[in-house]
């Protein structure tokens, strides 16, 4: 009698094992059909397709690899598209923002050449034309810089820098300009060291562009520079007491070539803030502007401490 019980036990346990294996097999085949569907889709060019897989599935590594390949191909494809777009944007820029001063330059020079103006007025025309030509030259230079940035062609070298010390060094060079332009300035930077990884040239450009923007556009009389830090980020703030930015324009000011209508004049090229933003993004930081309650605008650059 004894052996019957043993046999039954063995039978029952082997049945359990079989049921377990069958369900496992069923699950794997289900996952394989999902993989197959996704691969068909990916083959058709949908590089965004991902295969989702459970933590302890046998096919986990295969699925992760498929996803990785799809994601990398997608990134490459998009980078190609982006450099194409950067080129297109250069062309639009050239046609819009170079053509305008160039046309007006031609207008002045034609007037001189066809002798519509003479004497003192002629001299004045020539001077305006020359100024316009210089401005145009400067603009084209900045434009190419920006295109390079936009196409991510420029090489960045991040190194450990004491941001407090480094910023002070940049600001020293600005003090004569502040005095010339009748700007009161207040600098609030801690003496403590605060090392973060940044590209020195890029960082100089960010600070310079923000200050330049305040001097050129704020119409204020005071500029405040402040650096503060918390656990994750360092915040660099440049604020003024000028006219502020209208809420309609505020979201657009970092867009390339965006200038609110009134200030669409000669002393700005609409690229400074766009460049600053690109550079901040290369540091994986954020930049934004807000109007302060007491008038004026504050630009805040947030840079992460750990890249």
């Amino acid at each position, binding site marked *: 009698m004894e052996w019957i019980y043993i046999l039954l036990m063995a039978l029952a346990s082997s049945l359990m094992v079989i049921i377990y294996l069958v369900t496992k097999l069923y699950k794997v085949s289900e996952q394989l059909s999902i993989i197959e569907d996704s691969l068909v889709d990916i083959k058709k060019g949908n590089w965004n397709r991902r295969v989702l897989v459970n933590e302890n599935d046998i096919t986990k590594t295969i699925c992760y690899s498929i996803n990785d390949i799809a994601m990398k191909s997608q*990134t490459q494809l998009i980078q190609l598209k982006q450099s194409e777009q950067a080129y297109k944007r250069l062309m639009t820029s050239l046609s819009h923002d170079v053509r*305008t001063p160039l046309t007006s330059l031609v207008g002045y020079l*034609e007037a001189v050449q066809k002798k519509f103006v003479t004497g003192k007025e002629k001299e004045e025309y020539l001077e305006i034309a020359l100024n316009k030509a210089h401005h145009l030259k400067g603009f084209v230079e900045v434009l190419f810089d920006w295109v390079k940035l936009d196409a991510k062609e420029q090489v960045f070298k991040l190194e450990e820098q004491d941001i407090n010390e480094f910023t002070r060094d940049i600001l020293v060079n600005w003090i004569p300009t502040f005095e010339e332009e009748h700007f009161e300035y207040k600098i609030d930077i801690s003496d403590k060291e605060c090392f973060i990884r940044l590209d020195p040239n890029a960082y100089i450009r960010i600070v310079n562009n923000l200050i330049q923007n305040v001097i050129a556009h704020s119409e204020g009389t005071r500029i405040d520079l402040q650096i503060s830090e918390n656990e994750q980020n360092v915040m660099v703030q440049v604020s003024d007491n000028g006219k502020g930015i209208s809420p309609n324009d505020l979201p657009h000011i970092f867009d390339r070539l965006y200038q609110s209508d009134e200030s669409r004049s000669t002393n700005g090229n609409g690229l400074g803030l766009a460049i600053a933003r690109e550079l901040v993004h290369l540091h994986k930081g954020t930049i934004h502007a807000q109007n302060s309650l007491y008038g004026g605008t504050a630009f805040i650059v947030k840079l992460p401490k750990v890249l």
Partner: protein
Amino acid sequence: MTKYTIETKQLTKIYKDQKAVNNVNIHVKKGRIYGLLGRNGAGKTTIMKMILGLTSTSSGEVDVFGKNIKGREKQVYPRIGAIIETPGFYPNLTGTENLNIFAKLRGTSAPNAVKNALEIVGLPYKDKKLFGEYSLGMKQRLGIANAILHDPELLILDEPTNGLDPIGIAEVRDFIKKLSVERGKTILISSHILTEISLLADDIGIIDNGILLEENSMEELKRKNGKYILLQVSDAAKASLILERQFGLKSYSVKDDHTLQIYNNSLDMASVNKALILGDVSVISSQLCNDTLEDYFRKITGGDGIA
């Protein structure tokens, strides 16, 4: 592959004899951001719920990835990430634990999926803070993290910037844009704030009282709407000289050899025309565009405007 990631055909939802959504046909193109703009209660959330199959349709059809979603939930849902209204989570768990639950339920597309998703939205990984102690902004961010956790092809985001502060809004906007530009995701986003949509969307659908009033690309709308004078003349160079010298005009751009766009609507067109003719420039046409996007939306929604 169909061109549209989401297409609705005559989509209608009736609540107690009232048409909450009325014959709506929206077309969300692959790889683009579609902004659904409308006042609170206009039917945006209902449309999104119907697309996701979270509420029944009274009539009409919804195609997602080219096919009807009914009966294919198991294949389609893993490819979609969504937040509808304010997303809820388990208050007795931390953000990371909450996401771990969803990662386990859905499966993941890559190792460290939870950590990556939290990083993108700017929340700390393995933080001790319970979801119940989160601020509204953090809750919203966790909701977005959950929507992108499985790296889906399609994101459906219902008012994703609700409850965020201005810095947060800018950050969320930045990474939504990034997801579309750098990762090629298709995104359907709703908002009641015009600037929000105009900054993000490539295509826009305007909905009011359940009716889709307009569907168009942002580019087209921006081209059609802006405050400027379009001037067609025989010689742009001469015209620009006259405008600069006699009217002190600075804000204008030259589109081509015969077309000028003037961003100063207060200009007296009669005297401009006269001066140009005197200066031997013939005016082919002048066109005054006096609508901003806001004016446009006010017009098509019947006077009240949006936000």
